[in-house]
């Protein structure tokens, strides 16, 4: 038995600002054993606890896919004590990491099927790892559609990658910003994500949907997908409950008898529907 | 005589006290500056923490200093009526009045906590104050019964 709470040290290979208060770190393992163990376990959708001694730990998804084995990435917003301390770190410095924890998107079961990714704002990172995992294994899947929206053009994350996806022939990318959030040279759509999804009317035929975003976006997007004919078992999302331990002990992420950190964070909408709604 | 003996007994050999001073920017800090530019000699044991105003000196700061192992704390600002922000020192004075009594009840005696008004013109008063506080704390010895002190983890 070993100390489950002992993190490994990661070096920040590069750091870039995605949007106001949102930053991405590319992290390299400094411990080879930890790295090997990590890749043995890591599947898209899993998360880790990123920390800085003296400040504490925060939970974010691993934003890079398991097909990229030189580094992991995380993208996060500055919201409190830990995220502020982390964002003040620069390339070359170190932070701590524990993980990967939680369950994952069952993408092996999606082979041959079409996939639509729907994300809003800072919720693209958990979806992005799935997108790249799928794109890195492109031939195994059918049609790939990505719908991504943010409040303003400045709030869009991964702008370079949006351009890459845009340029791919076998990916349909729809970007949108909320009304009033556009700039003069904005070429994407203007409107809220649920409306844009409705207008683009993706076919539910042999298609799975991955939906991540702020609660309000999810609340209005799910009925749209249902109306289009998507089955609740084919719509996947992640829950972002507050966590401390990440390993099913501290009790903070409990929803009903589930530990979101162990049984989640990936759930189908069918599963979410069975949870006590008042605790979400 | 008895008192003198006790003091020598509790006093550690070569004891150099750690004293934390919370001072306001406009008066006491300027007074300390004047003491320096006037080349007045004063004891080097005081670590000064400058704040905009004594009104900003929360009792938590004082506790934090003791927690970190300060042998004594000095709090100093503008004379009544001289506050750069009109009334910050009056507010501070009310807090000190109660908080020092509470600390005293908890075991932080008078000789571990000092208060003063030092204006920007009182370089000499500042030097004298520091010398006197340092001498008192030196005589009292290390703050072994400091109830706020962080224990080793």
């Amino acid at each position, binding site marked *: 038995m070993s100390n489950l709470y002992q993190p490994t040290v990661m070096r920040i290979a590069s750091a870039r600002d995605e949007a106001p208060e949102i930053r991405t770190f590319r992290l390299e393992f400094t411990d080879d054993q930890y790295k090997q163990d990590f890749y043995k376990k890591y599947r898209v959708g899993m998360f880790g606890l990123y920390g800085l001694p003296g400040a504490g730990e925060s939970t974010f998804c691993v934003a890079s896919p398991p097909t990229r084995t030189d580094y992991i990435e995380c993208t996060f917003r500055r919201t*409190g*004590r830990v995220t*502020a301390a982390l964002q003040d770190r620069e390339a070359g410095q170190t932070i701590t990491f524990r993980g990967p924890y939680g369950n994952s998107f069952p993408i092996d079961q999606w082979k041959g099927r079409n996939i639509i990714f729907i994300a809003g704002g800072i919720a693209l990172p958990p979806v992005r790892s799935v997108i790249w995992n799928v794109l890195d294994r492109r031939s195994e899947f059918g049609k790939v559609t990505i719908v991504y929206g943010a409040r303003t053009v400045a709030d869009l994350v991964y702008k370079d990658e949006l351009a890459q996806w845009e340029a791919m022939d076998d990916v349909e990318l729809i970007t949108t910003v909320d009304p009033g959030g556009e700039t003069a040279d904005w070429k994407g759509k203007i409107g809220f994500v649920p409306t844009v999804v409705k207008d683009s009317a993706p076919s539910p035929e042999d298609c799975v949907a991955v939906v991540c975003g702020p609660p309000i976006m999810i609340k209005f997007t799910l009925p749209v997908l249902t109306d289009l004919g998507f089955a609740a078992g084919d719509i996947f999302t992640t829950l972002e409950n507050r966590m401390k331990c990440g390993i099913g002990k501290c009790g903070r992420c409990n929803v009903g008898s589930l530990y979101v950190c162990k049984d989640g964070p990936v759930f189908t909408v069918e599963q979410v529907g069975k949870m006590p709604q008042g605790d979400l | 005589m008895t008192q003198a003996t006790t003091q020598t007994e509790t006093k550690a050999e070569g004891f150099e006290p750690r004293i934390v001073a919370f001072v306001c920017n406009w008066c006491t800090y300027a007074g300390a500056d004047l003491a320096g530019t006037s080349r007045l000699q004063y004891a080097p044991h005081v670590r000064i923490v400058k704040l905009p105003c004594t009104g900003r000196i929360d*009792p*938590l700061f004082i*506790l*934090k200093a003791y*927690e970190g192992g300060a042998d004594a704390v000095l709090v100093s600002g503008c004379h*009544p*009526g001289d506050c750069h922000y009109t*009334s910050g020192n*009056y*507010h501070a*004075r*009310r*807090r*000190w*009045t*109660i*908080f*020092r*009594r*509470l*600390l*005293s*009840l*908890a*075991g*932080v*005696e*008078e000789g571990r906590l*000092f*208060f*003063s*008004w030092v204006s920007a013109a009182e370089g000499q008063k500042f030097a004298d*104050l520091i010398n006197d506080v340092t001498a008192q704390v030196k005589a009292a010895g290390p703050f*072994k*019964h*400091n*109830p*706020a*002190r*962080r*224990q080793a983890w």
Partner: protein
Amino acid sequence: MVANINEIQSAAAALLNEGKVKLVLGYRVRGNDRVPAFVTQADQVGCLAYDSACTQNLAAYLRKGEVRSRMPLAVVARPEVMRSLMLLTAESQIAEGQVTVLAVDEQGFHGVLDLAGTAKLLNEQYARIAPDSSLMEQLAKIEAMTPQERSAFWSEQFEPCTRCYACRAACPGCFCERCIVEMNTPQWISTAAESHGNFAWHMIRAFHQAGRCVECGACQDACPQGIPLMLLNHFIAREVEREFDARNGYDPQAEPVIGSWKQDDKQEYIR
């Protein structure tokens, strides 16, 4: 039980029937205990009880959202609770019209009052509530100790503190939306139940009671570990009165003691 408990019950029923209040906060008997009662229907007033064992300070419920949403309400209040209500009025936490007082003391029920009427009653009938004499004796003993002994005494008292914050939860004066101990940028007070964190917490809790504590004793009753919080509270209240001639919870218009000032406040200790 006080002799005229029926009068409390019928006053509560009348307030509910006339629609003047939506809720009556009182006490009921449960076995050997007295527990809070939340009465919303006139036909439930029969459970209301009052005697000297009813020690909880019901004014503490006035910061709970689920109770505030049922204002206007009535509170069964002994003198200390009335003082808490005065304090909450002075601190802009409640206003006239939101809270009606069912005034009680060990002798019995003394009528239905608004906040202004409560202030009048307090100052006429209960201007001096003598503090517990054993408390004063204990305090005198502690004050006679050497600093080393005082430090050791409090370390021992604070040692069992588990930081459950029951003291804070039971206190009507602790109405901050977010307590200083929960501020984490920076973390001023260690949240670990260890000596320095416990010391800092109890010092700051006591200090924040300056000008607020009405010495109702609810915090000490709530403490599962039996920490003698009233020694600290009584000390602070005594010093506030001695230094600033202020007695907490008698004037609904009073300025906060810490947070106001006078030019001629004492300062003999400042060089």
